[in-house]
């Protein structure tokens, strides 16, 4: 099994070498050596800091790896992941190919694609991580294919996400009245104008909302797995824009203003300004109720035809100063105990990236013991995860939205 995956990665890496000439396969030392070299390093983990639970989890990870491996973690709090990418680009521009200031980035989507294409990542790294054997690479496809881009072992999955819609059951009393498709959402908005919104399209969750609608509305979703072209973009997205034209004036603030991100939108739900919010984390509502950020009456559902799911990764820049320490942190993140803690709604509450079948009975029990919560969706309510469309669709949709609605 171990050997076969290695071959898979080697093949992927070779494919990547062919398709992206910038990328150079780097040979990494053996794991024991990496762990030894990592001792005493402080890893600058660049991670979006808009979520307190995640910040606390990162702090906990720092304490753990300090105690276990003597590796410190400094959370570089980002407002936008692109800040870290820009920094690496600036360092490369200034010719600093070693001792870079960014050691580890929480990353996915266009940022990951960008760094991969520009050859800004160390790796492939996943094959050296002992804990990578627990990661689900077959059923949770987004762990190895990020927005249709093969990850090629250049980034380590550490948490999964799936689009869900969160509503206040004190306002929408009948669960059956909660819309679970794009057309149903429009009908609901017609009856409840001003009570729905989505994050700003410059935010990834905002453009994801449009993507989710597109997947739901598109006549043929398969085409979305290929890069968007000038030839097909207009035709494929036509149903989306027709739908959105009707929806926009019915949104909060008549669709003239949007919350900056999902946390800001959650705040709107808590302030009673809207009735429905969306999240990329099925347990976010439950976590938020426990944290006093949402009323206890909120509930979570997916859409009946399924919603987009993706994976968050950590990646190491090619010039990272403390890359050994960064590898140790990445490996710790996919340890079964760490993943179980990450999924605990009292902690971070994120879906794990592991394959239960690869875990021992004891390791599995840690997941089974996790608490249930009224705001957690059942498997049926959540629905199946659907693959992200090719990143070019999101980029183009966001640009098209800006073109249409930014005056």
């Amino acid at each position, binding site marked *: 099994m171990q050997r076969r995956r290695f071959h898979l990665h080697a093949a992927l890496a070779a494919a990547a070498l062919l398709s992206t000439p910038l990328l150079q396969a780097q040979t990494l030392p053996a794991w024991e050596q990496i762990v030894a070299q990592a001792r005493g390093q402080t890893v600058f983990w660049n991670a979006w*800091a808009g*979520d307190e639970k995640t910040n606390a989890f990162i702090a906990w990870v720092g304490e753990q790896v300090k105690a276990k491996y003597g590796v410190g973690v400094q959370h570089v709090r980002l407002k936008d992941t692109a800040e870290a990418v820009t920094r690496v*680009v600036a360092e490369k521009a200034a010719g*600093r190919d070693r001792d870079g200031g960014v050691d580890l980035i929480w990353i996915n989507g266009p940022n990951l694609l960008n760094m991969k294409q520009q050859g800004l990542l160390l790796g492939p790294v996943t094959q050296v991580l002992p804990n990578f054997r627990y990661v689900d690479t077959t059923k949770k496809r987004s762990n190895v294919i990020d927005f249709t881009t093969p990850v090629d072992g250049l980034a380590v999955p550490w948490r999964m996400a799936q689009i869900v819609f969160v509503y206040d059951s004190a306002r929408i009393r009948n669960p059956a009245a909660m819309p679970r498709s794009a057309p149903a959402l429009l009908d609901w908005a017609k009856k409840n104008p001003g009570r729905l919104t989505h994050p700003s399209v410059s935010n990834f969750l905002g453009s994801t909302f449009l993507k989710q609608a597109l997947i739901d509305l598109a006549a043929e979703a398969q085409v979305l797995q290929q890069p968007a072209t000038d030839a097909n973009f207009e035709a494929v997205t036509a149903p989306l824009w027709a739908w959105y034209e009707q929806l926009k004036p019915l949104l909060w603030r008549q669709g003239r203003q949007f919350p900056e991100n999902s946390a800001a939108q959650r705040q709107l739900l808590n302030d009673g300004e809207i009735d429905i919010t969306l999240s990329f984390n099925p347990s976010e509502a439950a976590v938020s109720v426990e944290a006093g950020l949402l009323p206890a009456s909120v509930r979570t559902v997916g859409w009946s035809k399924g919603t987009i799911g993706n994976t968050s990764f950590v990646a190491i820049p090619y010039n990272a100063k403390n890359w050994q320490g960064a590898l140790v942190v990445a490996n710790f993140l996919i340890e079964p105990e760490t993943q179980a803690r990450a999924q605990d709604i009292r902690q971070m509450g994120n879906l794990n990236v592991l394959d239960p079948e690869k875990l021992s009975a004891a390791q599995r029990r840690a997941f089974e013991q996790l608490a249930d919560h009224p705001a957690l969706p059942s498997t049926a309510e959540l629905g199946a995860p659907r693959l992200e469309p090719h990143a070019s669709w999101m980029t183009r949709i966001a640009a098209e939205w800006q073109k249409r609605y930014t005056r």
Partner: protein
Amino acid sequence: MAEALHALSASAAVPRARPPWALRLAPALTLAAFVLPIVAGLAGTLLPAFGWLPALGGRELGANAWRALGAAPGFATALRLSLFTGWAATVLSLALALGIVAFVHHRPWARRLGEAMAPMLAMPHSALAIGFAFLILPSGWVARALSPGLTGWELPPDVATVGHASGWPLVAALLLKEVPYLVLMTLAALNQVPARAQVTVARSLGYGPVQAWFAVVLPQVYAQIRLPVYAVLAFSLSVVDVALILGPGNPPTLAVLAVRWFGDPDTRWVFPASAAATLLLAVVAASIALWFGAERVLGRWALVLLQRGVRRRRSAWLGGAATAAGAALLAAALASMGAMALWSLAAQWRWPDALPSAWTFANWQRQAGSLWLPALTTLVVAAASTLISLALVVACLEHESRQRVARPSRSLWLLYLPLLVPQVAFLFGLQVLLVRLGADGRLSAVIWAHLVFVLPYLFLSLADPWRAFDERYTRAALALGASRWRAFWRIKLPLLLRPLLLSCAVAFAVSVGQYLPTLFAGAGRVATLTTEAVTLAGGADRRVIGTWALLQAAFPLAVYWLAAATPRWLFRRRKALA
């Protein structure tokens, strides 16, 4: 008599030894400390604006960046928004400030008003903006206090306040800080004009009190508040942190747009970003030129009115209205900080409760772990940049007073340079320079970047009291056999301790409030209370934001009170000093 004596002793000065080299070096060093980064940074932003940035593949000079800027969605709106908010904030704050001063200057509590307003200046813009945002939201504190009882709103009304496309909340938040700033600047300038006597004379000629002040006193003081007004104009046109918190998001102001593009994962955006930053520089330069022209035109028009002898006795209510507006601004600022204090202690505070429904200290306890490092960084950076600036500024001023050279007035313009050049216009260039030097992300780089802004403020607030110092005290000490240093340490410093400490408090507050310089020079790795608070303001838990914003505002306030109280305590037995 005293003046005659002063003149005598001044002209009878003995030629003295050249000052020590450290003092002679001070002016050049000081100038280099803050002019060099600006000039280098401007170059590093201007070149990419015209296509030159080899590291990112820009090897051809041309106008592509400008074409991309022009074609960017929302560019025209962003530019218009910047112009409107910048000009509206400046015109309104100057009008209010002058109205307030005209109305209160002769009243006994005018001095106390100045003292009450001074701490307002210490509050960081972003902390105020965060609090103000919660105040004015449709589901904010004001609406909560009035609902549903007075308004009948069961749900928050679906109207825009924060982020309104016109940008008025941004203008209002700028007023919170700029009105007190200009009032204090005008009150300080009034010290050199016998305003009360002149207004009395004018009133006896039948002019209303406020009109009299505007006609007789303002022309004399305006020259002294001109540069502060330009600084307000430049700042309002290019502010980023307040615009991030309160301004519209789509499109935002030009300055925010530039910062957003500088941070875009697609690095090709660096070119239009540089073009936008350069355009902002041009906008600020043109606005200042236009303002200068308007001063001339208005001055001439006022002269015509005066010559016609128009009397407006009722002008007083305009001053009264301005003062009332000023009081409302003060109340809004206090309420903004009060709201943050409440949030930091709230367990739950949901619409439409006027106050939190449950209280807790848990927010502070939970945040303590993540608060202390940024708090310490804030302290270290602010203290270091203040102390370095203080050493440089005191050396400059001491050199000047020992040389007794005529003050070159052009250096004042140079001092204002960091306050007149938009931050976005040179910080990217500075960051590239710092990366090249291998210094980005170091604490020292952040301290240097703060120095660029701290130093001018410290110089501006210390120069006047320093120059007003009566050198005969020093001379008396020298005549009694003290050395130059002893006279400086034992006589001059204690006498100037009060203005010295207050200037340090101003400098400290300036450092604490810096957002963009910390972000760019710190390469995102140096977190201060301000960068963290602005990051959190993007939508995090208000209870958390409350702790950060409150601590961010508490630091400079505490230092300000310390600076005000220390001389009083030290000299508690020496009435004239305390």
